[in-house]
C-alpha cells in the first residue's frame, strides 16, 4: 500500500467522500518543458485535474528547459496551449490560480549548476507552497538526454527524498529500441532511482477502455468462463491510423511500427486480454500477471518470423479522397528506407488458457480509418440447426473499442422476422459517449494523478518492458538479417495493408475484422 493511501486512511474527514487515493502535494519538474508533450498533454492534463478539484493544494509545476524564458512568458505560452488542447474550457479565474503554481527554470540539461539551483528552488517551493519535499520528475525530453539528466539529479541529491517525502521519476516511451538499449536505460535510471520510484508511462493504459478490460473480464461473470481456448477461436488487436509520419520521420526511421507500437501499446493490450485474474488490485499483483503473459509469448525463429510476421510500407495513395505521398517520399525519410509502417503478427501465448488460440496483432499507418480495438472471436456454434442452406453461422464477436468512440459491442445471431428460420448477425452496442455524457479524463490525467499518489498499477515495470523487447527483438533480428530476410511488402496508402497480411489469416481460414 502506498504512503499516500496510508495518509488517506488516517484522515477521518476523507472517509466516504474520496473514492481514489488522494495525491500528495508535490512539485512536478518537467524536463523538456517547452516541447510538444508538455504543451499538448501534460499541462492540459494538470489543468483539468485542477478544474476537477483533484489536484492537491500546493502542487507546483517547474518547467526545466534550455531556452531563456521568464515565469510569466512560460505561463503565457502554457495558457495558449491549454486553451488549444484542454478537454475543458480554460476559465480565466481558474487558470490564474493554476498559473500561479507554474515556474520556469532555465538550464542546459548537462549543466550541473542548473541542478544545484533547481534543488535550492525546490526547497524554497517546499517552504512557500507546502509541497513537503515531494518531487515528481517528468522526463518529457528526448531519450538521449535521460542519462545526463539522471546523473545530475543524483549529483544534486534530488533522487533521494527526505524522511516522510518522496521522489519519483516518470519516463516516457520509447523505453529503448531493443532489449540491450532498454536494459541500458533501466540501468541508467536505476543508478539514480529505485524501481519503486520509477514510473514508465504507456498512455494506452491510462485510457478508460483499456482499464475497462479488467472490469469487463473480472466483474462480469458471463465472460470469464468463456475466456479460454475452449470457447475462443482467436483474438485480433488492431491499431490503425490514417496519419503518416507527420514530422516524426527522424524518430520513426529508426523505430518502425513494431518498435513504435507493438512492443509497448499493443502488447500491453494483449496482456490485459490474456492475463489471469490478479490476487488483488495492487500494482504488483496486476503487473505480475501481465509479466506472466509476456513471458509466455512464443518466441519466433527466423523461419517462423517469415511465416507469422508481415512487415509493410505504404506507397502513394489516397486518404479520405486526397492523394498522399508514399513513405519514401515523405520529408526526412531515406528514399530507400526499409522501415516498416505496417506490421502484422500471429502471436501464440503458451499457457493452458490460450493453447492454440492465435492473437493476430496489426498496426499500420496510412490505413483507411483510424481506430484501435480488440476483437475476441468465439468459436462457432457446434451444429447448424437452422440455416441449412448456409455453410456456417457467423461467430460471436466481442469488440472492445479503445479509440475513438470507446465502447463494447457483441455480435450475435438473431432470427430474421418471417415464417422461415433465417438467421442474420446483429450487434449489441455500448458506447461510452452515449451512455456517459461526462467526458472521460484524458489518459495523462489519470496517469499523472496515479504517479502523484504512488500508484504504479498503470505503469510498465522493468521486467515487463524487457520481456516485451525479448519477444520483439527476435522479429526485428530476422527482418534485419542480411541473408533470407523476409521481404518488406508494400501497400498503397488508404488500403488495409499488404495482401500478405491478409494471407496470414487466410491460411488459418480467418480474415481481419473490418473496422
Amino acid at each position, binding site marked *: 500500500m502506498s504512503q499516500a493511501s*496510508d*495518509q*488517506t486512511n*488516517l*484522515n*477521518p*474527514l*476523507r*472517509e466516504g*467522500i*474520496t473514492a481514489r487515493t*488522494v495525491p*500528495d*502535494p508535490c512539485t512536478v519538474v518537467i524536463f523538456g518543458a517547452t516541447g510538444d508533450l508538455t504543451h499538448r498533454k501534460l499541462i492540459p492534463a494538470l489543468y483539468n485535474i485542477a478544474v476537477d*478539484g483533484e489536484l*492537491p*493544494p500546493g502542487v507546483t509545476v517547474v518547467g526545466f528547459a534550455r531556452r531563456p524564458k521568464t515565469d510569466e512568458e512560460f505561463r503565457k505560452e502554457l495558457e495558449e496551449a491549454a486553451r488549444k488542447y484542454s478537454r475543458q474550457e480554460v476559465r480565466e*479565474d*481558474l487558470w490564474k*490560480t493554476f498559473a500561479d503554481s507554474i515556474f520556469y527554470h532555465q538550464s542546459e540539461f548537462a549543466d550541473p549548476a542548473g541542478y544545484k539551483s533547481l534543488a535550492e528552488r525546490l526547497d524554497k517551493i517546499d517552504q512557500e507552497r507546502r509541497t*513537503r519535499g515531494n518531487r515528481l520528475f517528468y522526463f518529457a525530453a528526448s531519450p538521449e538526454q535521460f542519462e545526463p539528466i539522471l546523473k545530475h539529479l543524483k549529483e544534486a541529491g534530488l533522487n533521494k527524498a527526505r524522511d*516522510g517525502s518522496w521522489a519519483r521519476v516518470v519516463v516516457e516511451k520509447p523505453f529503448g529500441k531493443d532489449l540491450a538499449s532498454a536494459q541500458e536505460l533501466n540501468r541508467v535510471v536505476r543508478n539514480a532511482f529505485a524501481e519503486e520510484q520509477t514510473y514508465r508511462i504507456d498512455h494506452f493504459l491510462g485510457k478508460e477502455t483499456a482499464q475497462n478490460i479488467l472490469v469487463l473480464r473480472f466483474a462480469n461473470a458471463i465472460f470469464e468462463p468463456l475466456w479460454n481456448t475452449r470457447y475462443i477461436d482467436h483474438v485480433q488487436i488492431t491499431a490503425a491510423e490514417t496519419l503518416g509520419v507527420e514530422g516524426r520521420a527522424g524518430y520513426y526511421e529508426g523505430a518502425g511500427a513494431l518498435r513504435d507500437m507493438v512492443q509497448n501499446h499493443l502488447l500491453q493490450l494483449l496482456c490485459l486480454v490474456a492475463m489471469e485474474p490478479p490476487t488483488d488490485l495492487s500494482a504488483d499483483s496486476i503487473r505480475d500477471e501481465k509479466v506472466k503473459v509476456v513471458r509466455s509469448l512464443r518466441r519466433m525463429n527466423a523461419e517462423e518470423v517469415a511465416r507469422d510476421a508481415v512487415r509493410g510500407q505504404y506507397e502513394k495513395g489516397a486518404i479520405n479522397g486526397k492523394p498522399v505521398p508514399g513513405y519514401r517520399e515523405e520529408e526526412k525519410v531515406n528514399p530507400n528506407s526499409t522501415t516498416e509502417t505496417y506490421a502484422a503478427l500471429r502471436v501464440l501465448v503458451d499457457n493452458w488458457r490460450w493453447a492454440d488460440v492465435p492473437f493476430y496483432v496489426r498496426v499500420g499507418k496510412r490505413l483507411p480509418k483510424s481506430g484501435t480495438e480488440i476483437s475476441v472471436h468465439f468459436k462457432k456454434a457446434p451444429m447448424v440447426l437452422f440455416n441449412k442452406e448456409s455453410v456456417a453461422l457467423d461467430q460471436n464477436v466481442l469488440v472492445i473499442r479503445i479509440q*475513438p*468512440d470507446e465502447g463494447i459491442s457483441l455480435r450475435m445471431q438473431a432470427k430474421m422476422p418471417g415464417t422461415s428460420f433465417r438467421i442474420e448477425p446483429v450487434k449489441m452496442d455500448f*458506447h461510452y*459517449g*452515449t*451512455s*456517459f*455524457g*461526462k*467526458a472521460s479524463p484524458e489518459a495523462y490525467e489519470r496517469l499523472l494523478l496515479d504517479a502523484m499518489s504512488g500508484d504504479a498499477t498503470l505503469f510498465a515495470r522493468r521486467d515487463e518492458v524487457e520481456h516485451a523487447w525479448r519477444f520483439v527483438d527476435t522479429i526485428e533480428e530476422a527482418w534485419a538479417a542480411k541473408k533470407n530476410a523476409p521481404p518488406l511488402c508494400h501497400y498503397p496508402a488508404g488500403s488495409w495493408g499488404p495482401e500478405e497480411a491478409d494471407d496470414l489469416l487466410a491460411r488459418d481460414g480467418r480474415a481481419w475484422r473490418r473496422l
Partner: protein
Amino acid sequence: MIETEIADSLPAPSFAPGMPVEIGKIDRELKKLWEVSEGAMTRASLINLAVYSEAPESLSANTQLISRITQDHACRAIVIAANPSAPKDESQAWISAHCHVGRAGSKQICSEQLSFRLEGSSAKFLPSIVFSHLDSDLPFYLWWQSEFHDPMDPQLWAWVDRLIYDSQPWKDFDSQMRSIETAQAEAKQRIVLCDLNWTRLVHIRLALAQFFDHPAAHHHFDEIDCVQIDFAPGFKSTAVLLIGWLAAQLKWRLEKTRDDDALRFIDSSNRIITFELSEKSGEPIGRMVIRSGEITFSVSHATGSDLLEVVQQKVNPGGQQRCGGFGERRVEARRTP
C-alpha cells in the same frame, strides 16, 4: 416532441412537457416518436429517474432540470406534477425527448421524458403510473420533491433503488424521517438514501478535508476549540448536518448543557468545542472556519464566483480570545433543525 440542445445565440428552448398523449397509449406513441427520428438520433438510458412534485408549475421547471441532467446522465425521465387536493380528478400525459449532440460526433443522444399531471384522487395512481413506464432492468431513482405524506402507498417503495429528497425545507424533521424509515422497511430491496441537503455539502467537506491529508497536520484535530459556520437563511439544517459530520468523524460527543438549545461538543480529552452559526445571505454554506490552537482553517465561497477559497493562517493575537472573533452576528445552533 424532440428538443435539441441549441447554440447560445439562438432563442432559449421552451420547457413545455411535450406532445400530449393518452396515458394508455404512451408506449405506442413513444415508438412512433423514435421511428420518425431513426438514424440521426440514438436513444440512451442508464437509469429510470422519476421526479415527483406537488409544487405548482413544477412540470416546466422539472422539464428544464431534466434537460440539464440528461446532458451528462442519459435516463428515462418520468416527471410527475401532482395536486392531490384538486377538486376535480384528472390525469394528463405528455412525451418528449431531450437530445444533445454526443461527444463522439454528429449523432444526437436522446433521453425520453414522460410527463404526468395528476389531480385529485388520480394522484393515488402514482405507483401504477410509474411502474408501468419503467425501462426494465435499469435502476429506479425516485426524486421526491415534496414532503412525505403519512401514510405513503407502500407499493411505491417496492422497486425504488435510490430515494432522492431534500431535508432542507422540512418543517417536521422527525416525521419526515419516520416516513423514510418506513419506506426502507417496506422496500423489497435496500434503498440508497440521498439527501440533497447533505449532497450540497460535498465540496465544502472535500475542501476542508484537504487541510488534513498529511499526517503532520493531524495534531490539529486535537486542538480544535472553535468552529464557525455562515449559512444562508433557510439553510440552518445544512449547517447542522455539517456540524454533525465533523463531530462524528472526529468522535466528539454532544455536551448536555443547561440551556437545551445550546450546541457544544466534547472531544476524547474532555475539551470543549464550541460552534457558532451566523445567518448571512449568500450560498447555503457561505463560510466555515475551524480554529485549532494558533491556526485557522477557512473554506469560503469566492465573491462573484462558483469557486471555493481555502485559507490556512495563523490567528492574529486579538482573534485568539474567543471563537466569536470571526463572525459578525452570533446565532446558536439548535439541536433539531
